[in-house]
């Protein structure tokens, strides 16, 4: 696969294992700078797995192992001397289910900066406002920052989570099906947010929604599952990257037949 253009993260032959069970095999993929890259593919093909490798969230899973290289700023993230905590401070994450802390809106957004040691009130105030504006939430909550984050609607909660992650000023934001728990209007709001307020960020988004991938992303990576019968009637399955291209191209003239089948809904 030809790799051109400015790249923020580069995956090189990445394979992931859970307790020595292969989950994803040999993914090679560039994540383009300040662009939106979508991961699509059938359930269980390893989209989340790859995504979570990008900021080493998989380190939290017992028995997870990553082979290959993930290059970010000329540095392999999985090199022994890299600190996963520092990685996550640069590559943020938004999860499938909105997960605000059981604290006030203000404390939710200020949490990241406080972890870093920002304590001055005026600095925090400014960061909170900027982040909430950045997540297009400011106008809705400005009057009541003391309100619990859990008291917001689902869509607002998800935007709060986005605000929370941009408060630490990451380079990259990873989103794992951020809209799957939201209604269409809230979904549209977040897509718009990615296009407008977050246009300067590099974004990777996992989605099951073909339209969303088409509407929102610049590049798309399609993953699929490979199977192999093992002795004793057990089946071994793992995910592979089938095709990576500009979204336009992938949806309109896919190279692989499998991709074409999937986007046409002909996937078994």
């Amino acid at each position, binding site marked *: 696969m030809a790799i051109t253009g*400015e790249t923020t*993260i580069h995956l090189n032959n990445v394979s992931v294992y859970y307790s020595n069970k292969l989950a994803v095999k040999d993914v090679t993929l560039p994540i383009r700078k300040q662009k939106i890259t979508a991961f699509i593919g059938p359930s269980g093909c390893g989209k989340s797995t790859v995504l979570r490798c990008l900021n080493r969230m998989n380190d939290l899973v017992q028995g997870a192992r990553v082979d290959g290289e993930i290059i970010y*700023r000329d540095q392999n993230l999985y090199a022994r001397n890299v*600190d996963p905590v520092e990685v996550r401070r*640069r590559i943020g994450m938004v999860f499938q289910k909105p997960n605000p802390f059981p604290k006030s809106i203000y404390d939710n957004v200020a949490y*990241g900066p406080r972890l870093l*040691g920002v304590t001055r009130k005026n600095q925090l105030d400014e*960061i909170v406002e900027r982040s909430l504006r950045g997540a297009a939430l400011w106008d809705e909550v400005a009057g009541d920052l003391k309100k619990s984050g859990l008291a917001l609607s689902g869509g607002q909660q998800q935007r709060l989570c986005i605000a929370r992650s941009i408060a630490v000023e990451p*380079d990259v934001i990873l989103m794992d099906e951020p809209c799957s728990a939201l209604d269409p209007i809230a979904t549209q709001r977040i897509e718009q947010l990615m296009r407008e307020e977050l246009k300067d960020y590099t974004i990777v988004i996992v989605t099951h929604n073909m339209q969303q991938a088409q509407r929102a992303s610049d590049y798309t990576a399609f993953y699929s599952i490979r199977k192999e019968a093992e002795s004793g009637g057990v089946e071994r399955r793992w995910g592979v990257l089938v095709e990576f291209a500009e979204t336009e191209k992938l949806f309109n003239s896919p190279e692989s037949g499998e991709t074409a089948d999937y986007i046409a809904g002909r996937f078994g």
Partner: protein
Amino acid sequence: MPSAPVMPADAADSPVKRKRAASMFKSPRPFEAFIQSVLFFCGAVSILTTVGIVITLGNESINFFTTLGLVDGQRRTAAPMTAEDTRIVLTGGGFNFQVNDTLFVEGTVNGQPANELMLVTEVIDRENLVVQRGYENTQAVPHDVGVQVEKGKRVLLSEFLKVGEFDPTTGQFMPGRWQPQIAEFSAIPLISATLYSSLLAMLIAVPVGLGTAIYLSEYAAPGVRATLKPILEVLAGVPTVVFGYFALNFITPALRGSPFGIPMGGGFPLLDTGLFVTYNGLLLIAALAFVAFWVGSRTTTGSRRTLLTRGSTIAALLAIVFGVLALPDAMCTPGEVGVYNLFGASIVVGILIIPTISTISEDALRAVPRSLREASYGLGATRLETVFRVLIPAALSGILAAVLLGISRAVGETMVMALASGAGPNLSVCPFEAAETIAGHIARISSGDLSYQSMDYNSLFALGLTLFIMTLILNLLSNYITSRFREVYQ
């Protein structure tokens, strides 16, 4: 390869960027490392506790089984001896020594105390013994005036676990005894009382605890459950010493016939020979009725059959009740129920274990997936049939774990036993006599001022070790079963 990135926020310097470490490389986080080791230490304390228990009990038990103790009161005075004399001439009255007794003889050499052990090889008469001098690597020394001869004793594991022996002369069975005052250290009476009381307690706790669990998980409406659960919680929260008070001030008086201090007609009549006939007669009638009804119900049809079935169930229950009531008659010689007795204490231990068994069993029953219940109802089973044929088998390992834990609690229960079951080890099949359990004995003996050097003191640890091993096996089994059971449903 990627070029040097110029990120959006990099353009403006910000407080967050300033605070963030310049590189992604690991730098030491001493505070994190410190916290982690402190937390690990907290976890390791539990290991230290176990090690402490094992060492403590083990060490003192080894002392108990290896050091030579002196037996209170088994002593004589003797005439002075030279270092070579192999004959002791005893003076005054006192204990009669026997062949193979180890003697501890106090003496002084040049004004310094010098003690010696001797082994009795021959008993000539009450006053004259032939001994082997300088036994067990002690030195044979001369003994001057006022020589004290005491019997030394070493308890062997074989004695500790001795059930009893046949008296060679009379051919009678002499049960092992635990009487530290006369240096008899067979733990069997204590162990048997412990097991006996646990058995009695489980006879109460298992049916009632299980019945409670089944009712709460399968029958009770949410509102009823919400009122019944707290009752069990209160029951579980009552300190055991309070249950001891209850045993001594309600259960035992009730057995003796005057609960609350109000006499109720002549005492609990179980031991009354007059009623021996009554209970056994009733048992016989109930048993016969059961057989008659049962056979009847198998051979008739129609509504009479229902009636007969019901009759046989009731007769069977009555037979069980009278059987249980008649049992003590068979095991006890007629007499009064003791003020302190194993039975009353065991009932109360049974009561206090009910919450343990019911809570764990209920959890196990509730963990059975809904689908299993629905499948059973779908096949037309009644609720009772679902309980017995589907739920109990499915939750069996959890229930078993609960029962094992219950037994372990009964075995270790101290306060109720110490207060209500009486002092003095007693190997008896009659539960209406006083008998002491291991835990009760430890509590009683250690409440006095014990000298750290005495055999009594060491014997407590040997008993403690026995108790520990018993409960450990039960707990390990229970935990093993629980962990297996978890795997099944996850």
